[in-house]
């Protein structure tokens, strides 16, 4: 793998780390399987790209992208909480609707950001090569997000959100308005996906309506890889695990695609992703089974 390919993988891994952290929030903390990110990620990219072309300050455009993602999350949460539609289906409905919304926002299937200032512009030309500047800036954003999120989850509000996901009945008996915490959590999760979309558009120089496909699988892959390499119950470490998982996942994909011997090409990305996630999900099961098998044969445990 070349140096540029390596830093490129780290950069895209850091962008998707925000999705991973959002997915951790919905799938793990709220126990709410939310596929909306497939729509909120390109929504963030679209909103950011359009606002940048309109001449808005890049940081404000990025913030607006996050808010747009959060609004998409609120739609899913409303369908589920208010109208009792199954969470998975509610999120698929929002995701499908967002495809059309994204086309409307951009006015066409893709928008190029060739000459526009982005959040990265001020950091180019400081003597550091561009392919290193990008992961550094994105990494800084990710670090801030992880710290703020860890602090949030340790707050009274955040603790109530965690209780909502683990034992909603108990949470309600303790006076937690579980509905409000689902709204807030899913909005936050998709806000992070929108933010990731905005960074994706700015680091890659375009927004495309199809970039959202498979976002949820990539996010989930990162969460699972993270849990495997950093199995921890401490929240900060779990969030860091999501980030590490996202980077490792991208590096693994990069290795798989660049190894000529295997004969894979870029268009095989989604297949490779699905296989990686399936393997990551199957391995712990096989490991547990093997452990049980050993225990039985030696008679050390029931």
């Amino acid at each position: 793998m070349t140096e540029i390919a390596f830093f490129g993988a780290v950069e895209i891994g850091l962008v998707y780390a925000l999705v991973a952290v959002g997915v951790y929030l919905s799938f793990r903390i709220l126990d709410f399987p939310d596929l909306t990110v497939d729509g909120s990620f390109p929504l963030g990219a679209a909103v950011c790209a359009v606002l940048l072309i309109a001449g808005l300050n890049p940081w404000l455009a990025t913030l607006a992208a996050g808010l747009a993602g959060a609004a998409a999350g609120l739609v899913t949460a409303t369908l589920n909480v208010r109208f009792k539609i199954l969470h998975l289906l509610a999120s698929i409905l929002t995701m499908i609707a967002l495809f059309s919304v994204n086309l409307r926002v951009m006015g066409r299937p893709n928008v190029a950001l060739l000459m526009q200032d982005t959040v990265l512009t001020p950091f180019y030309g400081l003597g550091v090569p561009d392919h290193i500047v990008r992961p550094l800036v994105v990494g800084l954003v990710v670090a801030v997000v992880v710290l703020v999120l860890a602090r949030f989850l340790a707050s009274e509000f955040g603790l109530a959100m965690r209780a909502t996901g683990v034992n909603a009945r108990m949470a309600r008996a303790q006076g937690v308005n579980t509905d409000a915490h689902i709204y807030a959590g899913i909005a936050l999760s998709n806000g992070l996906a929108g933010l990731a979309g905005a960074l994706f558009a700015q680091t890659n120089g375009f927004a495309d309506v199809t970039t959202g496909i498979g976002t949820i699988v990539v996010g989930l892959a990162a969460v699972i890889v993270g849990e495997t390499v950093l199995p921890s119950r401490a929240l900060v470490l779990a969030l860091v695990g999501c980030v590490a998982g996202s980077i490792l996942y991208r590096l693994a994909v990069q290795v798989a695609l660049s190894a000529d011997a295997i004969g894979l090409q870029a268009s095989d990305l989604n297949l490779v992703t699905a296989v990686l996630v399936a393997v990551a999900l199957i391995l712990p099961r096989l490991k547990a089974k093997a452990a049980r098998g050993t225990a039985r044969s030696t008679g050390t445990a029931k």
Partner: protein
Amino acid sequence: MIVVDDIHVTFGRGTPLEKHALRGIGLTIPEGQFVTVIGSNGAGKSTFLGSLAGDVLAETGRISIDGTDVTRWDTPRRAGLVARVFQDPMAGSCAALTIEENMALAAARGRRRGLALALGGDRRNGFRDRIAALGLGLENRLHDRMGLLSGGQRQAVSLLMATLAGSRILLLDEHTAALDPATADFVLDLTRRIVRDNRLTTLMVTHSMRQALDYGDRTLMLHEGRVVLDVAGDERAGLDVPHLLALFARQRGGLEISDDSLLMG
């Protein structure tokens, strides 16, 4: 003080499974009274407790707590006034959260939860002191996940959690039914101590006639959604388990008492 005025609850109205679970319950429970509630399966005990907690909303009638009409309030809104311990030790606490996190959740019951650290300041020390008073040695295990505790320990912590936010009413739904006899006795003693020390108005549902008479100062028997026996004071002091069983059997249409011998516990 709890005032319940002629409440009715029907489940599955208009379906073949329609069940008129509460058929006009009306009673007043003065401040600080410890009431035990008995009745056969399906008598409406849990529904009655649920209607006080807000899980089940009464269709007609009124419920007021300390002078506030709470009839239409949902569970989270009533949580500031009412604390509960469930039958299933797993239901009343979060297994995946630590002991101190569970306590912090309970301590914030009934007030707005903001962005302040849930375990900030000297909160942790306060929790340590409170849990040390249980005498279970849990004060050194505040960072342990709740799921690592035994059923009895979890019920003890749940009882403690019920007292952290200063609510005046405690609802116990067969909270010792899932425990072995020795642990159940420990939790019952703890219950008595906590209710007395905090002067809580308490309703305890139990399957055991013995417990119903030994604990508290008033006993209700429910049958088919109605209060069929309501005794306190001298009349209650004169009651014995066989008396209660006889009354119980009469309510069930004169069935053989031996059918209920299992309930003597």
